[in-house]
């Protein structure tokens, strides 16, 4: 499953460690929330970065105390039709000011890339290699966005306001 970051396929530096497997001595690891919460210090004190895969059926509030010490938060789309992770993503980015890697996992398909970017995801475990390859192309699909999210893209309303003001200022 290719990982896309910065618009291209990159190597995944994080090892997905199963709940019953031993944590490697060093290197970056991604663990489930279940494992993480059993003993957060065991994960966080390791040399090597830590990431948590947070389920979409649980409030992100429980993860917030640890955010400062994490490198990756991975959210889940069990099917692409289950949109709970979009809310989680926005809360993490916009309310809790998460600046680390926000990764989309699960059934991550091409036609949701733009939504995911807008919600704050910046890394994608893409289901199909073809979709991963088309990432850079796909995210150019839309240049107009009606509503604000934390992604910094200017909304249609604001663009109009700017136009009105520049018109009335005689620019």
């Amino acid at each position, binding site marked *: 499953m290719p990982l896309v970051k910065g618009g291209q396929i990159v190597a995944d530096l994080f090892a997905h460690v199963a709940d019953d497997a031993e944590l490697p001595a060093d290197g970056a690891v991604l663990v489930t929330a279940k494992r993480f919460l059993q003993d957060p210090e065991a994960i966080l004190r390791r040399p090597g970065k830590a990431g948590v895969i947070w389920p979409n059926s649980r409030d992100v509030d429980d993860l917030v105390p640890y955010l400062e010490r994490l490198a990756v938060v991975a959210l889940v789309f069990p099917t692409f039709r289950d949109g709970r992770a979009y809310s989680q993503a926005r809360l993490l980015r916009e*309310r809790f000011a998460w600046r680390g890697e926000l990764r989309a996992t699960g059934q991550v*398909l091409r036609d949701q890339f733009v939504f995911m970017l807008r919600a704050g995801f910046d890394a994608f475990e893409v289901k199909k290699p073809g979709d991963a390859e088309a990432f850079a192309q796909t995210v150019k699909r839309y240049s*107009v966005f009606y509503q604000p999210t934390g992604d910094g893209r200017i909304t249609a309303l604001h663009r109009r306001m700017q136009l009105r003001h520049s018109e009335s200022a005689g620019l």
Partner: protein
Amino acid sequence: MYAYDEIDRTLVNERVAEFRDQVKRRLSGELTEDEFKMLRLQNGVYLQLHAYMFRVAIPYGTLSSRQLRALAHVARRYDRGYGHFTTRQNIQFNWIKLKDLPDALSDLAEVGIHAMQTSGNNTRNVTSDQWAGVAPGEIEDPRIWAELMRQYTTLHPEFSFLPRKFKIAITASAHDRAAIKIHDVGLRLHKNADGETGFEVLVGGGLGRTPFIAKTIKPFVAGRDILSYLEAIMRVYNQYGRRDNIYKARIKILVHELGIEKFAVEVDEEWQQMKSDALVIDDDVVEDIRSRFFYPAYEKLPHNPEELKKAAQDQKFEAWRKNSTFAHKAPGYAIVTISLKPVGAPPGDATAEQMDALADLADKYSFGEIRVGHEQNLALPHVARRDLPALWKALDRLGLATPNVNLVSDIIACPGLDYCSLANARSIPIAQELTRRFANHDTANLIGRLHINISGCINACGHHHVGHIGILGVEKNGEEFYQITIGGRADESAELGALIGPAVPYGEVADVVEDIVEAYLALRASPDELFVDTVKRLGVEPFRERVYATR
């Protein structure tokens, strides 16, 4: 109507390009149907019994003549020459081919029409009152706010994969013509004691398997805060709405399971935490939207011009005028309802020829504007009263002047088993037979206002729960049967109808409805007492007795 600017046009065109790519990938096999289905639904494309069905959005039921001609063009070029207007102010084409859809969408995009989010688990067409902007006594034009909400909810990255569909309706009049109480979110625009414009916000209305009338979550949210408040509601729903069972996934179930007080607290907690000003609606934002709505320059015209006085001799014209024209906020003007319920025809349908002709009439008599109502009729919102006789002649020639608006033969019906793959039974032939039984206009006028709603299955697209008489198609041992309810209403006094007895077979439905009407005529306190009020006064029992005495 709202004039698209470059920004709106760009979005629609980008959407069309995306869908064209998605169709291509579907037909090549790159996308499975499982992956494609939700994408096509998000562009209003259903699979029905015979063919695909294409549902095109008519935002808050407002069309320009140019747009209506484009709909006629789609009917003619890509379909079988007609379209069906729905209970949510949209239009449906029943015979469309998947491979033609990108082109059809592209043709529609040229006039600022789209099919975004007319299906799927996202926010659907924000509907309003088909008399918005012209009804006397309206607080202000609700369509300004509907347009703001349309933009806010279109391709919203957080809310495009909700647990289920999400429907919003707005009213700005004391008499609710938008049925807000049967919507997921209903908004009543009004001014508070300080003269501020804002909304009473209701949540959790909806029909289907578990019908609910919406409850008030907040009596007043200022206009400037309505988008952030909506975002709070939708975020709570997106996170906590049920996803395990599609029949329990609407927000009405969440509201019911939590209780309205607890739900209101959840929403408020979320709302308080939204620090950003990004969603605040400043006055100049409202002004910008308003500035792109077209409002006619009305002339100063007399209420009773010569043309009208002369035409009063014509009984047929008078019958139509009294039935189908309504008071307008501008003196000397009228709102004209165009009945799409001629005797013996499928309710709510119009041919491409009728649409084109109506577009011309709109240009001539209504400043180029047409409206679509949730009762599946159309309206011309700005007709000078002196033009009524000439307009009527033209409408009559087109089969668009049946004087049965709001009467027993003005039936609201879903497409039913003739078209729809979800249906248990047919609805259109029932409607057709009923229009034949009640074809006599004197009889219909004697009966007075009476709304019959027919649904071919429990999904209730015909809104049968809130019909004065509601008819629901069910299946019993491979045969079509119908449950009849009475006393429902969809307006500000919204209420669900009550079952009168066991389901009756297809062949008996029209007889039963005649019996119910006869019972009403015998029992009403006076000719002024409406059917729905007689039912309220007397309950179901006297009607049940009459209907089931010999069955």
